[in-house]
């Protein structure tokens, strides 16, 4: 399985390659897009301006193309907004053509309308986890889209991934491995993300009754968990054995905009976990060795692939 890591700035590419990324993914948002649309109808799912999450110029993409030729870790470019306006499809096509001329041929897309618009282009498309839920029936539609890779979303159980891989539809399958385990499903998240306001899942709330009651419902206090370990915001390392057995080919480390040092730590931990996986004779042995090596002080419990409750 290969590690694919988020890249926020062109300067970070060498460091992330050195840390163990097999490939990277980035966003490309040129000034003309920002001038017309800002992040009101964003180009991808990093819907902010004031964070280093996008490559913002064709000049920087040209620099990146040179780095890729030198260090040989391919970069996929993400255009994974949930939808676009009709007027934006030709703009996106022109941007992809510019990138294609530089040597970028793989694009991550979530909007099926965009995929259909671009279906005659000779690019390789990855179907984003932000597109939809997947099951054995929807994989037949995925096949018709001609994508090379299907990226499963964050909340997809491994058994569901296995069923989809058996159904077929793509040559490669990617699963989330580290960071940003959202409370809600990305493909069904319609709320505002921007610099100035938190996403709605971070707006204050409390548990209450539907009807009028004297006191709110009783809940447990959340368990204390380690919050400075690898994967503190989302982790699938324990599930690597099952992910490999299922047929996952690529593992996503989320982090466009994270500091390069934090991404380096995550990549090195993921590399260590893959090394332990390769040396382990059984799943139990793998988990034991993984915990001893990376989580001796406890883990965050923010599991991407929790066991089903009965």
């Amino acid at each position, binding site marked *: 399985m290969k590690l694919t890591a988020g890249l926020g700035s062109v300067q970070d590419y060498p460091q992330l390659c050195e840390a163990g990324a097999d490939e990277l993914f980035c966003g490309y948002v040129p*000034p003309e897009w920002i001038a017309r649309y800002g992040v009101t109808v964003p180009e991808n799912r990093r819907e902010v301006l004031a964070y280093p999450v996008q490559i913002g110029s064709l000049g920087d993409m040209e620099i990146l193309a040179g780095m890729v030729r030198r260090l040989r870790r391919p970069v996929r470019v993400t255009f994974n907004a949930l*939808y676009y306006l*009709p007027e934006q*499809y030709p703009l996106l096509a022109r941007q992809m053509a510019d990138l294609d001329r530089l040597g970028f041929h793989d694009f991550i897309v979530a909007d099926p*309308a965009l995929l259909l618009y671009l279906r005659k282009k000779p690019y390789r498309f990855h179907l984003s986890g932000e597109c*939809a839920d997947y099951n054995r029936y929807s994989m037949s539609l995925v096949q018709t889209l001609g994508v090379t890779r299907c990226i499963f979303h964050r*909340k997809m159980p491994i058994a*569901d991934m296995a069923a989809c891989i058996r159904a077929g539809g793509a040559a490669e399958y990617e699963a989330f491995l580290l960071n940003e385990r959202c409370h809600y499903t990305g493909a069904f998240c319609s709320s505002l993300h921007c610099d100035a306001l938190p996403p709605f899942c971070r707006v204050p*709330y409390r548990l209450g009754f539907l009807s009028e009651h004297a006191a709110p419902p009783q809940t447990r206090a959340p368990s204390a968990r380690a919050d400075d370990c690898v994967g503190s915001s989302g982790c699938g390392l324990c599930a690597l054995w099952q992910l490999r057995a299922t047929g996952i080919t690529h593992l996503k480390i989320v982090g466009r905009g994270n500091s390069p040092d934090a991404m380096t730590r995550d990549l090195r931990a993921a590399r260590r976990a893959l090394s332990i996986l390769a040396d382990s004779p059984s799943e139990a042995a793998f988990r034991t060795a993984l915990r001893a090596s990376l989580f001796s002080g406890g883990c965050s419990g923010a599991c991407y692939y929790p066991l089903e409750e009965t």
Partner: protein
Amino acid sequence: MALWASDIPAGLLGCTLGAQSVGICKIGEDGIVLRAASALPGGALQLHVCRLGGKPTETCAPSRYHLREVLQKPDWREYVFSVSDPAYALTVRQVILEYNRFVQLKLHKSEADCAAALTGYPAQLDAVIAPSFATQKRTWFSAVRPWHTDFTCEIAFALDTPALASQFLRQPLAAIIRQAASDNGLSNHPLLQKAAARVYFGSAWCQHLLPSPDLLPQLLGKAKADGLAVTLSLPFLPEWFCAQARALLAAAERWCVAQNARIEVEVNDWGVAVLLQSFPHLQPVLGRLLCKRRKDPRLPGPMDATLLAGNDLMHSGWRAALRTLGVTRFELETPGYPTSVPPGRHSLHLPYYQMNTSHYCPLTAVLSTGDRGAQHPTRHCGAPCSTCALLYPDHLHAVGKYNTIFGCDCAILSEEALLGRYCEQGVDRLVVTLL
């Protein structure tokens, strides 16, 4: 001494030389350092400044600048320019100070205080959350001033829980609607006084809220006897539910064949759209989870409302592709700001709109662990949503019910002109859900 800064995010500050964008290494009041793979493109230098808070992008073209030196780096060249232009200096200074202010706010202030400082968001109101959802609704709907115009749209009512579906077997729909209207303080609203011609069963959000394959024919039979058309809402389709979904659709198809009838199915999963190709008496309509749009009670806020109005459903090619799946009707929502309606005949769900939906149950997670993020897949549902909800600040008009956060557009219940515009554009059905 001139003010300089490096690595200002490209979203805030871009640079073009002629028609081509180039990266900025550093920028100062009296200069700029650009990078390029090799030679810089030709053309005049322009800065593109995007201001936070939804202000329009500004361009700044310095009148006097010259290249001082070129530095060869491992992967690019850096071109160091001196700039002598008071307007440029002022723009750069504003950008640097504004970005610095943003960073300081994010480092030292809460998210609510940042929002207040950057947009005027009423952060102090976030502390006001009513003791129950019933109390919230009473407050929200007490401000509604019912329409006077008699809209000719078909009226549909959603029976979106097992309890309501069971009630339907025992009572006329009109009685259920009267009770729901009374419970919500909307008895005088014409939307709930006009006779419903259609009923929605099932759920667009959660598999555990669907009728069983045994119950569904009973519901369909009752609806037919009462002269009601039917739409069956199905949610997204995880693998564990595939067999049950197929059984449910097969039951619906058998009933339709026996009764020489057709029903609609609200499709919120592409797998369901595929399944429906095998059931010719079930008419797919594009569901709310597949009609993509920004929906948030804080909109338009810092965003451009005119850009928010459209979405991919306005693209004729996409609509043509949906027609190959048999889909021509879209289940739209009213998200609190005006939106465009694609050509054709479509439904409008009100007053609630979906914002976030989770594959797993946030309510169960909160009740069992105190942590909404500690969600687990579960086949056996304890139905916490029949008694509990996640309550949000009153001023936001939002609620976390089932596995979904909903917003409530109260304005549409009062402002006839808003609804009139939707009807003029092709909405011919109003679907009422009272959570």
